[in-house]
């Protein structure tokens, strides 16, 4: 319905929940207040996690970290319609989506703290490790989707990437292949307006990113990425379409990165405060709060309760990750192949011998 009614060539954007918290009743998705409250809590956890990660990075307790503040609705709502058998293949700014699909916050923290075991997903959690080379991972989602289709297991693969990634050739190869093979794949682009410092208008001459889907023969929908109801609704439609054999979709979630690109970035060099303030007024959490408040489903007491509980959850995850001992150096060699080669065994022995000499010295 959204894919048919909203033309990305006309810049038409799906919007259900306004920044004032008013809901377009004609488009309201099948979400009750309890579900919205759950999603609010999840978004709040992401926000608190993000801030905690940045503060820990400043204290030297966390590695370089890609922030997601402002994009919580994209992640909470886009993962909500997924089933455990579905796959998530994401970039580095989707900590929230990975968590929503079953990766514990402790594990995500472990990764950003510099331990590869942070990418050792729990059994049964269909989430690939963070992919750092921009735009290279949507192809993996197409392969996972094709495998699902081949086995007829009903799974859908969802891949997340940013506006900047849409300039990478692999993203276009992925969309083309998904179209050709009718792979059950959803391409979820978080257009957060900047690729580090370059604004989206300098990234592409297309008025929208969503319209690029049309050239690959499948629907593209532009959606307000700070609107959980709209993101949920278009995502549910795309996932259902993929699951019933209707092929891929592209969703462009129009959003904004309120934080820096990473903890190593200084956004004051490329954008002004007024712009950030405008987007603060469109905060995805704020509008859910207003919506729930108007329905009597939000109170200050509940907010305090939530803050306390979510802060505790984040703190616990961080502490648990910090408590994981540093892995032994042998781990570098241990996971290169199912069986290490003679050269690897030799190099491992040489490193251990050198370390022993250093310790004695």
């Amino acid at each position: 319905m959204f894919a048919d009614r909203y033309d990305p060539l006309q810049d038409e954007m799906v919007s259900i929940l306004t920044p004032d918290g008013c809901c377009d009743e004609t488009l309201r998705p099948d979400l009750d207040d309890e579900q919205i409250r759950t999603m609010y809590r999840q978004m709040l956890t992401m926000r608190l996690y993000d801030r905690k990660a940045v503060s820990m990075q400043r204290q030297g307790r966390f590695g370089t970290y890609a922030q997601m503040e402002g994009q919580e609705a994209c992640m909470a709502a886009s993962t909500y319609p997924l089933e455990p058998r579905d796959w998530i293949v994401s970039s580095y700014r989707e900590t929230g989506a990975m968590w929503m699909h079953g990766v514990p916050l402790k594990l995500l923290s472990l990764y950003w703290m510099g331990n590869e075991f942070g990418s050792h997903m729990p059994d049964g959690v269909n989430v690939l490790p963070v992919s750092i080379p921009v735009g290279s991972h949507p192809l993996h989602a197409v392969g996972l989707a094709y495998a699902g289709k081949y086995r007829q297991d009903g799974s859908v693969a969802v891949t997340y990437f940013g506006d900047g990634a849409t300039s990478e050739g692999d993203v276009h190869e992925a969309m083309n292949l998904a179209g050709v093979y009718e792979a059950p794949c959803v391409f979820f682009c978080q257009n957060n307006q900047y690729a580090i410092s370059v604004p989206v208008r300098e990234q592409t001459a297309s008025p929208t990113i969503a319209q690029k889907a049309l050239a690959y023969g499948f629907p593209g929908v532009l959606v307000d990425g700070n609107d959980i109801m709209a993101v949920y609704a278009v995502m549910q439609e795309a996932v259902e379409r993929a699951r019933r054999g209707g092929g891929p979709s592209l969703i462009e979630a129009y959003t904004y990165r309120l934080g820096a690109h990473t903890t190593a970035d200084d956004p004051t060099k490329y954008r002004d405060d007024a712009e950030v303030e405008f987007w603060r007024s469109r905060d995805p959490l704020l509008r859910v709060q207003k919506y729930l408040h108007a329905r009597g489903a939000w109170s200050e007491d509940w907010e305090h309760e939530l803050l306390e509980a979510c802060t505790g959850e984040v703190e616990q995850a961080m502490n648990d990750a910090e408590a994981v001992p540093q892995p032994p150096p042998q781990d570098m060699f241990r996971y290169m192949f199912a069986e290490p080669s003679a050269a690897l065994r030799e190099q491992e022995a040489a490193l251990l011998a050198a370390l022993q000499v250093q310790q004695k010295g």
Partner: protein
Amino acid sequence: MATRTLLEAIREALHLELGADERVILLGEDIGREGGVFRVTEGLQACYGRARVMDAPIAEAGIVGMAVGMAIAGLRPVPEIQFMGFLYPAFDQIISHVARMRNRSRGRFTCPLVVRVPYGGGIHPPEHHSESTEAMLVHTPGLQVVVPATPYDAKGLLISAIRSPDPVIFLEPKRIYRAVRQDIPEECYTVPIGEARLVREGTDVTVIAWGSMMHTVLQAAESLDASGISPEILDLRTLSPMDVPAIIASVEKTGRAVVVHEAARTAGLGAEIVAQINEKALLSLEAPVERVSGFDTVFPLPQLEKYYLPTPEMIEAAVHRVLAF
């Protein structure tokens, strides 16, 4: 037993593995209806259908990247890249994802796939169709790199590669696709990855080569025999992981070595082999190890091609030099 060319042996391996294991899926440009530009996959789509022998859009990064996802999902994709010169668009996928997935996920996800790539010069093709850049792949941690030189090894190594729990780049010596015939078993068999083949024993010098160069080496050996020189010939078959013990054992016996490859000289695999011999068999050496290789030039168009590739005469000359040292 049946007589097979190297190309037929590869096709037979694919046929057998497709028949034995539903997880095996081939994908590549023109591999279906056309049977591939070299006809390696001829007849396979008719036999196993379009879902398992997939004609792909012209997108090498896409083909390999998609295979990554398929492999993670538990399938055994065998992508074909038409020529090694067209493998480069897929290098990011190979280096950043294929080779790293097991390590970076600490064994949670693996990437068991086989990228089949015809490589090497000598067939008078257009530009970009003669590449032999195996050293780039061998230099990449996390890959197995295999190069058969005989029909027997081609079939057995490819079956091993498809069954391997880790990724393999399978380089096919296209110059000798149809040049050699051999009686090989018609049924399934494997040749282990990582083991060199002692082609013939000798006493005076070890000649180390792989792929199409094996046949140039064998031509040189005939002349050397005639002049009373006895070369020991080693076919590496697997370039990564390399069978260093086989090289060392042979060099310890002969005291001399010549490495032959058609790839460019500088930082070619010959350099690594010389380094291994230096580290492990220096005191057995009677002479510096020689390299016979291609040049640090762009691979020439057909008119100059014959000057680029090592010839039997060049190999003989190198053998004479290490013997006279």
